[in-house]
């Protein structure tokens, strides 16, 4: 089922959580709402779910306006950051809840409910823990139960609010891959909220980057990462070096006192060398080297005194044999220039 949010505005007192937001989510996609806290992403998700109501604008499922429907009528599956499992029920009872509370004429028989729950337990690989209580499960297991519980009612859309936010890094990684697999199997339109850009880029078909109640950019992970539409997106998705500069006749000059432009360069788009290789370059002095990890992270000070971060492959680093306090040349390979919060040129 496709989801449309049209001109949604929501205020909490004087705080504008969502300012005239428009969003369309095609049927069957797995979409990430990505943004820092306070960007309005959770509010938007809760408005889609019917747990919160917009001050203006409306929500449509498959083109039908459902703004006036309650959460109960919308038939959405909602997964909470802190699981919200019913603590006095076993795993089995938790998953069966949505089926058991149906009006009698729509309620499946006990045997049907049991079959459905067992099927879901198998899906989340927790068949042996059906009689446990939530407090006896690990965080990752609880979240899987919460997901199974949401799926039991065969929701038209699945909404997940920071589903992995309360888990530790390793479980988080496992679970998000598992979610991706699950989505490939069941194809229910899914929206998940996250503030973790890595998570969004890895799992989602499409990423919606939000900031201060606005949508900054919507696109595939590849698009938003490689072609950020705004300085905010550039900044938020991955590390970035920021220089002041100006653009004149197709050329970009960085570190000009008369600025007006901001130049963004990702750390891995900067190359370090001992000699200027003909192209654009600037001088810097190496301050700190961290070679733990797949990439070597070098922190340097530019000739005009700003810090600059460079990332390079391990073998390149070994070849160069860089040492602390050494003077080097830095060659930008790819940079992006924005003016007054708007992109004016891409260049090199």
């Amino acid at each position, binding site marked *: 089922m496709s989801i449309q949010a049209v001109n949604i505005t929501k205020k909490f007192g004087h705080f504008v959580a969502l300012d005239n937001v428009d969003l369309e989510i095609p049927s069957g996609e797995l979409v990430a709402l990505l943004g820092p806290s306070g960007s309005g992403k959770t509010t938007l998700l809760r408005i889609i779910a019917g747990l919160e109501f917009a001050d203006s604008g409306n929500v449509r499922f498959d083109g039908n306006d459902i703004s006036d429907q309650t959460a109960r009528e919308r038939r959405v599956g909602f997964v909470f950051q802190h699981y919200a499992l019913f603590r006095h029920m076993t795993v089995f009872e938790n998953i069966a809840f949505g089926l058991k509370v149906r009006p009698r004429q729509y309620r499946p028989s006990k045997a049907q409910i049991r079959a459905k729950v067992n099927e879901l337990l198998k899906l989340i690989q927790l068949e042996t823990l059906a009689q446990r209580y939530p*407090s006896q499960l690990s965080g990752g297991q609880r979240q899987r139960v919460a997901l199974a519980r949401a799926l039991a009612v065969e929701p038209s859309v699945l909404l997940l609010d920071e589903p992995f936010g309360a888990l530790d890094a390793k479980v988080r990684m496992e679970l998000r891959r598992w979610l991706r697999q699950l989505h490939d199997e069941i194809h229910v339109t899914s929206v998940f909220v996250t503030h973790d850009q890595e998570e969004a880029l890895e799992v989602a078909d499409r990423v919606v980057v939000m900031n201060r109640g606005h949508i900054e950019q919507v696109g595939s992970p590849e698009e938003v990462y490689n072609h950020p539409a705004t300085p905010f997106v550039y900044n938020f998705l991955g590390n970035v070096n920021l220089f002041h500069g100006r653009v004149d006749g197709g050329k970009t000059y960085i570190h000009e006192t008369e600025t007006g432009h901001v130049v963004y360069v990702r750390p891995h788009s900067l190359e370090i060398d001992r000699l200027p290789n003909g192209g654009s370059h600037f001088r810097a002095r190496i301050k700190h080297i961290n070679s733990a990890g797949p990439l070597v992270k070098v922190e340097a000070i530019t000739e005009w005194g700003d810090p600059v971060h460079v990332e390079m492959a391990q073998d390149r680093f070994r070849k160069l044999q860089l040492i602390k306090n050494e003077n080097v040349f830095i060659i930008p390979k790819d940079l992006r220039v924005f003016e007054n919060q708007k992109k004016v040129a891409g260049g090199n």
Partner: protein
Amino acid sequence: MATTFPLPSLGNAAARRAGRATSERILVRWSLIGITVIFLGVFLFMPLAVVFSSALAKGVSVYFAALREPDALAAIRLTLLASAIAVPMNLIFGVSAAWAIGKFDFSGKNFLITLIDLPFSVSPVVSGLIFVLLFGLQGLMGPWMAAHNIKIIFAVPGIVLATIFVTFPFIARELIPLIQAQGSEEEEAAITLGASGWQTLFRVTLPNIKWGLLYGVILCNARAMGEFGAVSVVSGHIRGRTNTMPLHIEILYNEYQFAPAFAVASLLALLALLTLFVKSAVEWKARQHVGELEVVKVGETV
């Protein structure tokens, strides 16, 4: 190398041996325990022993005769009736108030909490007087009620009203912190899963607070049966008609009928013991119950 400052040696060998940072020296421990035991003995166990020994001082037959006496039976019946009405009403009120306060934000919330606490802070005698001033013959609504032949003061309705008022905060006060701490995510989950408001209340909210609720009911009931001050003001002390157990005991005592007075008092004491027992059982059960927060205790004023 920086200068090192020597730490004073605390020499708390007992604590170290006990393996606990919070342990005290043996002398301190035993004197604290001793004070507690003496205090408990003088103020709790001795009175209880006196009640039962005085009740049985003139033999078992006098004891049971005092309980079978018509006025005593009437008092017992009235006490049971008043609690049987007051406790369920406060149960409904307490759950609704705690639900409203715990789950929703609205203006005047703090005022409502203060109002709920009012019976705790007002002397029971004053509570009784409020009803006399409202419904008594000289009171605000007195003439109107006299004209319509409605009798509240010096009658059973007044006793029930006073009991309800005095036991008003027990259940609500018990549940508010519990419901607030639990938040409303589980209810939201239930609603998104298709549960109606009632289903959410009976299948999610109430099961989550059941031990706290039971605890509140027990305290509420104990107080409803034991209430003296407020009931005394509105009752009129009509033997066999408007006397509750505490009032009956007072009358017997004032008439120097010590054995019967203590006999009826022993019933209230037994009720207190039973309450304590059930209360401990509930607390124990609540701790056993996985995931439920510890039962929150409320203050009592008499």
